[in-house]
């Protein structure tokens, strides 16, 4: 950049003042042209509604209430969020989804590792496992309502496996299992997406490293631990953070499959009901604000946690680089030895 300016400056030293003015003018124009639409809309669609929402959370209002008839109630909505059992209690359900997210990430990571080595039909498997992510929510809801219905698909499979169909629970009604049923659907739907992201990251790791490590006698698990995992830790961390946020804001599976019946109403499902069915807009806004605070707190905690975990990352990286160098040297030595062997 500066190099360009110097060169051009030398070319036309006489009109330098005018040039820089027009150049800067052009620069400003470009910045405005490139950023103005997205930025305006970002403010209009994110920060403005966010501010409005915080304001609404202090009022008792319905959607149809005119602005001057809204009643200011102070902190009452926030007190209600914590007092009503259906609001804050719904956050407990997030724990189910967090366990699900953990299983999902481990499964995705395992699959991604298998599939990034050469496997027969690898592309077919990748495509297949990503596919559920492409089915729209309503169809998912319908598929799984059918899947879990008494005496239908899931019961049949279990009957083939030797379970007595009489003893099986109602998968979507029995409160002991219905949340797990929904979490399983969530894993089914999203693990392929995580897997493809992980494959992308793993494929960009230098393949020579694996070969070198294998020559060195490392097994697959050691390769995974020493080479793959450190190389993709950024995307793994990002996925963990996003999955915690996702668990706190779980919505679609319970909404489309059970509509929150029988104790499957997650925080957002309840919030949606409060806002649209009972028209308590102020209370729903307060719920949204509370959740947002929780999400920010969680993210902050996780960031600190990962900073703590990876605080040695720099030195680890160095040893990783050292290891890379060592592996290369050893590979070269092995090659030389091999050649010697051939010659002998």
């Amino acid at each position, binding site marked *: 950049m500066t190099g*360009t300016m110097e060169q051009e400056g030398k070319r036309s030293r006489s009109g330098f003042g005018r040039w820089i003015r027009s150049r800067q003018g052009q620069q400003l124009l470009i*910045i405005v042209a*490139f*950023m103005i*639409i*997205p930025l305006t*809309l970002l403010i209009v*669609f*994110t920060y*403005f*509604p*966010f501010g*409005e929402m915080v304001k*609404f959370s202090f009022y008792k209002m319905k*959607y149809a209430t005119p602005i001057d008839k809204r009643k200011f109630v102070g902190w009452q909505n926030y007190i209600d969020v914590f007092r009503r059992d259906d609001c804050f209690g719904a956050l407990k359900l997030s724990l189910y989804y967090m366990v699900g997210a953990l299983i999902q990430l481990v499964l995705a990571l395992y*699959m991604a590792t*298998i599939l990034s080595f050469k496997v027969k039909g690898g592309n077919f498997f990748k*495509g*297949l*496992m*990503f*596919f*559920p992510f*492409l089915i*729209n*929510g*309503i*169809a998912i809801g*319908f*598929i*799984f309502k*059918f899947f879990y219905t008494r*005496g239908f*698909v899931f019961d049949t499979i279990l009957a083939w496996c030797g379970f007595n169909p009489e003893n099986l629970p109602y998968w979507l009604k029995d409160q002991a299992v219905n949340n797990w049923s929904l979490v399983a659907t969530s894993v*089914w739907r999203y693990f392929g997406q995580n897997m*493809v*992201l992980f*494959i*992308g*990251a793993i*494929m*960009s790791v230098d393949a020579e490293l694996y070969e070198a490590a294998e020559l060195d006698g490392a*097994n*697959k698990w050691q390769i995974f631990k020493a080479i793959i995992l450190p*190389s993709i830790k*950024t*995307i793994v961390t990002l996925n963990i953070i996003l999955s915690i*946020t996702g668990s706190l*804001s779980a*919505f*679609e599976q319970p909404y*489309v499959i059970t509509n929150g019946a029988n104790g499957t109403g997650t925080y*957002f499902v309840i919030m949606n009901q409060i806002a*649209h069915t009972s028209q308590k807009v102020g209370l729903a*806004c307060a719920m*949204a604000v509370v*959740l*947002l605070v929780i999400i920010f707190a969680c993210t902050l905690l996780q960031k600190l946690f990962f900073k703590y975990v990876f605080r040695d990352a720099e030195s680890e990286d160095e040893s990783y680089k050292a290891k890379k160098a060592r592996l290369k040297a050893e590979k070269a030595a092995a090659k030389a030895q*091999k050649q010697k*062997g051939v010659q002998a």
Partner: protein
Amino acid sequence: MGESKTLNTNQAGKLSNKKVNEKIGSGVATAVLAITAVLVLLPLYWIFRSSLMSNGTLYAYPPSILPKEWLWGNYATTLETFDYWLYFKNTFTLIVPCVTAGTITAIFCGYAFARLRFRGKKIIFTLCVGTILLPGMVTLIPLYLFWTRICHLGGTYWPLILPYFTGGGFFNIYLVRQFITTIPKELDEAAEIDGASRMRTLWTIIVPAIRPAITVVILMLFIQLWNDLLQQLIYINDMTKTTFAIGLTNFTGSFGTKWNYAMAATCMTIAPGLVIYIIGQKSFVEGIVLTGMKN
């Protein structure tokens, strides 16, 4: 080979032991892959199978894996009430402008964040990153009021389309930005010395170079819209503007007891996604690999 000659017996023993372990490992891996594949496929296969059966045989116990008769006529019967082509047209009237607008603005913004230098860039960037953490559900209520009470646009596609002019979410802008930063700066500097304007540099140098990232952005946007359900349910209440998501909700609502027709409708709504995915899958996975999201 020459290699094995140089190994002593001890090492050879170790090697074969390792080979056995590896064989077991790859056997387990194949088994896990196969089981997962079956689990993924099963619910999908089952609705397809059921869509070809008569409603009576659906309830038969024990159920058969293949339908006894293949009743393709179910699809014709479903189409009598399920207005597939209208939903198809409406869904794509909604998706095409969103994807186009989202992709173009993502390119502009990503370029600006990657290459332009201006005051306040860091602050703006941080503000944008913050939006990733904000679940869409959170701003739903004020936005609904904004669109219906202030703009009077309830019942149109505008509340669904306009937000996509922001690059369709910051994730896409970030993706483009990351990819542009991997392109050597000398490339566009050379073009500028040759007298190309910023716009020209962007379209002739940057855009061809970031094609994999653009493919990923397009597919991500498509999936995001394809899966978006709640917003469509909230804003669209006009029968002539019904999309797949709403059409299927209404259909399964009114035909809830006739599972086979509902299944046929479900299968038909899955089909366009499947086709687009088969077309785009290779470049999608490649794109993600090339965007190198490792660090």
